[in-house]
């Protein structure tokens, strides 16, 4: 059975055609079976998409949604503030829908560094399977990306970032990054990146098939001292929500040490009716006691 690929309408002539390596990558993905999938989804191998039928009216918006969600999750899991990525372009994708209107999306997309260095144009590539649970947030994600920063270089940069932050006078209190003019002081850049890392977790968890997020601004931050030398940030980010256009303040508490998994707790404010959305990363130890009144 030849897979029918939905190619993206790209502005300008033509569009990417699936190449042999791409097809191989995607077949590999299909054969991998489900991972990070909650109960209730197909969780199948190969072409046994029981209960799933191909989503004929695949909208390009859905693939963008899936790419964003996959990358938020990837960034969070990678736990590396110096290796954050953003979506560059979706190359291929297809989707299935089931009777519960849940959607499963397979896609391939390119990425860029979130914080690109001068003149750096390198693109990374990711393939992902994303399960959207209709209007419910926290899509299940299985994503693999090509390594586009050498592991040792990445570790080195993370460690430099860590050292830089350790040198900032604690307790550090900061407001508004970037400032109104979009400026981030170079000395505060690592703070923004670490905040974005924590924000990625929140944005992943809040994403649904229909809503997505960008991090607009860090509106306050407190850095706490820890006994084990980890970086401990207690901060508020403003998330910009599509399609509602709302600005959602989320209080986030993260604990980070280079090379260790990120620990995140958060609490976002809803519109008018306080929609408490908070989450704790699975298996994480609870953060220092200073934050008992969250």
């Amino acid at each position, binding site marked *: 059975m030849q897979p029918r690929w939905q190619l993206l309408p790209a*502005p*300008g002539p033509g569009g990417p055609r699936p190449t042999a390596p791409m097809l191989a990558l995607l077949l590999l993905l299909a054969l991998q079976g489900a991972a990070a999938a909650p109960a209730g989804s197909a969780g199948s191998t190969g072409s046994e998409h029981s209960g799933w039928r191909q989503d004929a009216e695949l*909208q390009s918006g859905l693939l963008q949604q899936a790419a964003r969600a996959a990358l938020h999750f990837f960034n969070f899991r990678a736990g590396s503030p110096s290796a954050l990525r*953003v*979506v560059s*372009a979706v190359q291929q994708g297809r989707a299935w829908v089931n009777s519960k209107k849940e959607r499963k999306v397979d896609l391939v997309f390119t990425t860029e560094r*979130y914080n690109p260095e001068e003149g750096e144009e390198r693109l990374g590539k990711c393939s992902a399977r994303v399960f959207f649970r209709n209007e419910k947030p926290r899509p299940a994600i299985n994503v693999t990306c090509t390594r586009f920063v050498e592991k040792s270089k990445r570790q080195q940069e993370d460690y430099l970032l860590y050292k830089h932050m350790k040198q900032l*006078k*604690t*307790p*550090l*209190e*900061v*407001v*508004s990054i*970037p*400032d*109104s*003019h*979009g*400026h981030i*002081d170079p*000395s*505060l850049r690592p703070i923004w990146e670490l905040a974005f890392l924590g924000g990625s977790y929140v944005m992943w968890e809040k994403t649904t098939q229909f809503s997505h997020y*960008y991090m*607009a*601004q860090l509106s306050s931050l407190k850095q706490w*001292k820890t006994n084990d030398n980890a970086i401990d940030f207690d901060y508020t980010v*403003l998330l*910009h929500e*599509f*399609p*509602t*256009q*709302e*600005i959602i303040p989320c209080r986030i508490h993260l604990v980070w040490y280079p090379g260790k998994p990120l620990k995140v707790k958060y609490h976002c404010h809803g*519109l*008018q009716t306080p929609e408490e959305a908070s989450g704790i990363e699975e298996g994480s130890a609870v953060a220092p006691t200073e934050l008992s009144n969250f």
Partner: protein
Amino acid sequence: MTFPTSCSMRGLLILSVLLGAVLGKEDFVGHQVLRISAADEAQVQKVTELEYLEHLQLDFWRGPAQPDSPIDVRVPFSSVQAVKVFLEAHGIDYTIMIEDLQSLLDEEQEQMFAFQARASSTDTFSYATYHPLDEIYGFMDMLVAEHPQLVSKLKIGSTYEGRPIYVLKFSTGGNNRPAIWIDTGIHSREWVTQASGIWFAKKITQDYGQDPALTSILDNMDIFLEIVTNPDGFVFTHTKNRLWRKTRSITPGSSCIGVDPNRNWDAGFGKAGASNNPCSETYHGKFANSETEVKSIVDFVKSHGNIKAFISIHSYSQLLLYPYGYTTDPAPDHNELDELAKSAVTALASLYGTKFKYGSIIKAIYRASGGTIDWTYNQGIKYSYTFELRDTGRYGFLLPASQIIPTAQETWLALKTIMEHTMNHPY
């Protein structure tokens, strides 16, 4: 309080000290600000004792708390020696953060005022920075004064809070020629758009008589440019909330303020794609054209009667959109609009490679009712487009000022494409 390098933080700090100085008629000549490091509880205690010695007139900016927490204190000139002797005698470490507070204040004051110095002409105006409302209005007046034959300023109405709403008219003559309308800043937080509008205004005056395409356009048509389409909201983004989107009108019965001016037009008004909750960012208002900022444009467009292209500029997402947003029905001119959009984004990308997607609002972005260009299109203005400028989410609304000019430059190429097509396809 730490001394971060960011100008605005420092400015705020200095401002508050200045204010204190002005109000309290103090000066700070010879005052020093010390940062004390208390190594243990005992030392913290010692410093706390200092606090109680009123005659020293110490002003703790960051008071003694726990060990390892810096203690910052302003020490009047007369107490400096005594305090230092005390600290040294007890082996308490300190550094001098500010040697002479007054000279720092003087320097900062100079800087602040220099930063705010008005440009005296549109040639010295800074296009690569974001300006507040009064500076933009000042720019408009300068531009008109410098090019009285080409540019005039029209007042088309007043905002909810009573500010004048201005439109620049670029015309080489004629009588009610077919016209192009461009507006920026209808959503106040989208700062790159107002900034681009300023750049467009200057560009038009520079290119008339120099650039064949623009010259031809202006020899045949007029251009109307409304740079700050939501002045109340814009002021609010400078003074209170950088991320404010809507107008600032009061909704009776609600504590929430403002209506989304891009949901307030009479096209599919109130249908799905807008909110009836006054607290929402997409609140459509009590009725279509309830917002004076919107009504002013409606009245202008209707009374002009000869507008042939209407372009409303937003950020961010990098999209070029045409009607409709309130319905999935394709616009009758869908094919032509799509083709033209494609040409326009190609032209845009030619400069810096910035990729824009294009399509109808409902397909390319989301369902939105009561939108500007749906109304203008239904009025018969065929070439109705909405732009969403840079970027795609990395900085979003807080686009660094360094990107203003590149954004304006590339967008201008797309605008010219649309304007030329409009001129060459009269209807």
